[in-house]
């Protein structure tokens, strides 16, 4: 069940350092939203506040609200672990668990979250997740082999399979293709287009063609100077952002990056 996301007045800190200030946006269910912007402007930071991965870092804090279908995930009584079960994440570098087989990597979330380990159920979830990640055909004969033995692109799809195996509502992806070759990148992009029907997807990307290819809406983050907090400059329909952005800074960035 894909859900909507709404961020309200987000200020994100690393210790005393204000990394991102006053971010507001909404993301519709079953959509793909791209975060673009120069390095260090806080795209990853904002993304990680959406599933409370931010607070895993020592000293990191968040002010403001993130509403998931209207419910604030930063409310007092809410367990960050439960939030992360609902909002999955895929990282820049593929990071399959090195001690686990392909099968166990996909099953890891379910196995470790709770006692729900009936073998027959697991088999079904593993197959379904690998199929959704377009990896099943490539690995079905070697499920017991180590996940680390796959190619980079396959590893990243394995990580996506692992993330969707726990049936989240939202999938966050932080530059999932930046460590991959163009063919693997295309495979992941195809996958994202398919996953959209089941999940709400937010993706950080450095590649603006990629943002243009896969996303419905694009958010442009910027940084006025180093040491200053990053900010969300504007957010809109992707085609409009890439042709007629309202903000001068967006236009400069997009034309500079394309030219």
């Amino acid at each position: 069940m894909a859900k909507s996301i709404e961020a309200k007045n987000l200020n994100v800190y690393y210790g005393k350092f204000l990394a991102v200030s006053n971010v507001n946006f909404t993301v519709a269910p079953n959509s793909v939203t791209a975060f673009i912007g120069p390095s260090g402007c806080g795209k990853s930071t904002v993304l990680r506040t959406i599933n409370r991965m931010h607070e895993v870092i020592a000293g990191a804090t968040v002010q403001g609200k993130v509403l998931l279908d209207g419910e604030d995930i930063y409310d007092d009584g809410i367990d960050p672990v439960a939030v992360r079960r609902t909002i999955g994440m895929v990282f820049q570098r593929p990071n399959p668990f090195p001690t686990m087989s392909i099968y166990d990597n996909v099953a890891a979330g379910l196995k470790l979250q709770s006692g729900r380990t009936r073998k027959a159920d697991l088999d079904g979830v593993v197959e379904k997740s690998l199929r959704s990640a377009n990896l099943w055909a490539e690995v079905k004969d070697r499920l017991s082999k180590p996940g680390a033995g796959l190619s980079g692109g396959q590893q990243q799809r394995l990580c996506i399979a692992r993330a969707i195996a726990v049936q989240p509502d939202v999938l966050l992806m932080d530059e999932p293709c930046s460590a991959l070759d163009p063919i693997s990148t295309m495979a992941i992009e195809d996958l994202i287009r398919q996953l959209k029907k089941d999940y709400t997807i937010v993706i950080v990307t450095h590649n603006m063609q990629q943002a243009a290819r896969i996303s419905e809406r694009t958010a442009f983050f910027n940084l006025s100077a180093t040491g200053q907090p990053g900010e969300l400059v504007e957010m809109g329909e992707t085609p409009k952002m890439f042709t007629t952005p309202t903000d001068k800074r967006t236009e400069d960035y997009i034309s500079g990056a394309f030219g």
Partner: protein
Amino acid sequence: MTATLTAKPAPASHFAGPSGSRRFKNGLATVLVTAAFLVALIPLVWLLWTVISKGYHVVTSASWWTESQRGKTFESAGGGAWHAIVGTVEQVALCSIISVPIAILVGIYLVEYGRGAFAKVTTFTVDILTGIPSIVAALFIYALFISTFHGARAGWLVSLALVILMIPVIVRTTEEMLKLVPNELREASYALGVPKWKTIVKIVLPTAFTGIVTGVVLGIARVAGETAPLLILVGYSSNTNTDLFSNFQGSLPTLINDQFANLNHATGGTAYHLDANGNRVAGAVVNYAPDRMWGAALTLIAIILLLNVFARFIARFNKIAQ
């Protein structure tokens, strides 16, 4: 179009070859590194060769592994190291049972949870423990259990003294190994909605498992040859005593020490011993102490080596199981 080394560079190439001085430096560095390696290797091989060549024929006799030194003097043949093996294995085993869980938990605490003052104090304490000489650890246990509580000397007190020496070794290696586990794996696990403790138990520890096992073996190797705690806390007995909690107990280091004391007795005089029929017969004096000493040294090394192989086996098995 064959080029020789002395020919001028072919004009077609845009690149000059490596300059003479760079080649020289490269060559020099290679020689130095190789030399350093050999220098480091020589004492190791030499030591092993000495111990093996002098101890080999001793440890290959069956009685070495089954008999004690009960009633043996340096002149009487036979007997074995069983009493010492029992003592060393028991003492080190008890020490490990206490140390390994504590040390691994401390290592986990320091890497995964430790923040703030308490962690700093713990790290500092472990640093200090690392530098404690074994005899000081022995005296501490002596002061506590024998002077204060009037306990009697026994093997388990040795184990306690060894705990003080073993814990910092295992804490340090556990810390190093846990730090080697990439943070990305912890994050991947958190992002699946796995709680922190489960991430540590199911993701971090298995990834670091091989290294931690190596650390445990290092810790055991570190304490198995310690002699000071033995001399102070349990003494030496040439009889087999399997009771860790009372009386003197033999051990490999004290067996070595005991034989060492007899090393320089003259040989070649006349000695009498009883033959199989109980008749007193004369023979030349043979000093068996050197043989036994090297035999015990080889046994100690062999036990540690065996442990190493065992650790590797566990590590391999662990990999295959996954």
